[in-house]
């Protein structure tokens, strides 16, 4: 079905192509535009499932900024038990691997959720959301090296599923948190979640978002995440899933050249619901036109 070999491996999980939604941009997949079938994607990544039930943050939850948006949605979730009971079956019928993003308020939350998901064969992999800027006090596990290590190691010890550590860009040196993730048993890292940011209404003279601060995503952050993917490629051996500002296949290729194995598309899905299938097709065409047989031939090629 493809002209070139664009499959990728994340631990023991094989994806037929490297494109998936970013967690949070697709709900539990059901709220999609119905403009293509989910089996066109390398994987589905669900909106983070919190350990306990959460309502999410008060509104306004989103605001547009230059070339992007800030969200303070705050992970509304029915909790992991409800998710396993009532959502997982529908996801398993989509004919593509399902990656479950988990979140929590303390390391034990992640470990308990991972334990509950272990052994369920409908689960393709677990992405540990260590970096949501919108829950709790704003503390991000991935910004604290000790907590990060505890969570990844703890999750690793209770599950055989491939685990992906979703890192925060709000750190001084993301190579460190990527290396810690690798050392603690992560099969891959997602680079990266959103940037803590805010917008102020100059008429009301107050923050626009109900939760005051939120996470910046969109094309505005792409060059920064590009640098991070480039840096992390030199620091770890595990696959990198690039996330940040991808709106077209050219953006995805750029990340793959920087070292990404796979890519996640977030808020571009809101703008053009066909983005992800266009990215898959674009990567395949690019490789074909460059005379490559496999995506492996260009991964990290930008490194000198």
């Amino acid at each position, binding site marked *: 079905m493809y002209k070139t070999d664009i499959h990728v491996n994340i631990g023991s999980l094989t994806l037929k192509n490297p494109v998936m939604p970013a967690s949070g941009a697709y709900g539990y997949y059901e709220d999609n535009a119905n403009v293509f079938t989910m089996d066109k994607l390398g994987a589905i990544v669900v909106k983070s499932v919190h350990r306990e039930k959460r309502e999410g943050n008060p509104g306004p939850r989103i605001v547009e900024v230059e070339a992007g948006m800030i969200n303070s949605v705050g992970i509304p979730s029915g909790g992991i038990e409800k998710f396993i009971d009532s959502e997982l079956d529908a996801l398993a019928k989509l004919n593509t691997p399902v990656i479950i993003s988990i979140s929590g308020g303390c390391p034990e939350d992640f470990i308990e959720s991972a334990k509950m998901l272990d052994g369920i064969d409908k689960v393709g992999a677990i992405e540990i959301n260590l970096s949501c800027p919108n829950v709790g006090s704003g503390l991000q596990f991935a910004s604290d090296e000790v907590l990060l290590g505890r969570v990844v190691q703890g999750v690793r010890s209770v599950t055989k599923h491939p685990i992906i550590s979703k890192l925060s860009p709000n750190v001084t040196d993301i190579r460190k948190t990527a290396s810690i993730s690798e050392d603690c048993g992560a099969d891959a890292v997602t680079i990266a979640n959103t940037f803590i940011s805010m917008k102020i209404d100059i008429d009301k003279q107050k923050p626009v978002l109900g939760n005051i601060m939120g996470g910046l995503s969109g094309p505005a952050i792409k060059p920064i995440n590009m640098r991070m993917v480039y840096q992390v490629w030199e620091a770890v051996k595990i696959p990198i899933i690039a996330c940040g500002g991808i709106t077209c296949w050219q953006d995805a290729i750029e990340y793959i050249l920087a070292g990404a194995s796979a890519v996640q598309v977030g808020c571009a899905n*809101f703008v053009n619901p066909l983005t992800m299938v266009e990215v898959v097709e674009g990567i395949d065409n690019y490789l074909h036109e460059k005379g490559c047989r496999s995506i492996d031939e260009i991964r990290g090629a930008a490194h000198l």
Partner: protein
Amino acid sequence: MYTKCTVKENKLFSNGFGRIMFDAGEIAKASTPGQFVMVKCWQGNVPFLPRPFSINNADRQNGSLEILYKIVGKGSKLLSELSTGDSAMIHGPLGNGFVIPEDAGRIAVVGRGVGAAPMLYLAAEAIRKSVEVYAFLSASREDLIFDKDKYTKLGAKVFSTCDNNVLVTDYLVEQLQDKKFDAVYTCGSKRLMREIKRLKDIHGFDAYVSLEEHMACGIGACKGCICTTYKDDGSTQYERVCKEGPVFPVERLVK
């Protein structure tokens, strides 16, 4: 549906408002009153997000779809600059529209300014179903009462006011003295919403409100456009304006 649609006509009024008609094909044909569309009519990433617009009117036979808009920011400014033959990406029809009770004989639509935009399509639909329509329209100025002639032409009875000391619902109260309304519809003005709820509690008609909110996706995925609603037991919850709405029964929004 997500398709490229061509502009048939874009009429800019002198007061910073306009009405644009698209050849929207299947989107128009599938639409029902109260639904909305997401529109992006520019290239590149600035502005970043498509803009939600309620459907002012649609022709399910020829596929035309009309949007009544106010120029408020970059997105609506770009929309206002489109000419006949230009195109835009339109995603829709989205959300849950107005419910017209099956046995309805008479309904009232109540709206203020450009917020009343979706009411015209509803009035047209109701009249097609041989339901009698009363339209109660208000605004701060006469030129901000939109579609008055269109309602009249459809055969609706129109009541309007620009007097800020008069509640347009006072005209509805007068009509309620000797007429039964099966349903009343309004837009997101808090004052109108509360008044309609009060009248509903007295007269027992069905009442629906169409809300507006900033949106990113329009399909429920981003969970950005929430409103607070009341459950049957009186407790509150967040619901998405785009997915569970934009039309809500008034009792879910006002206690």
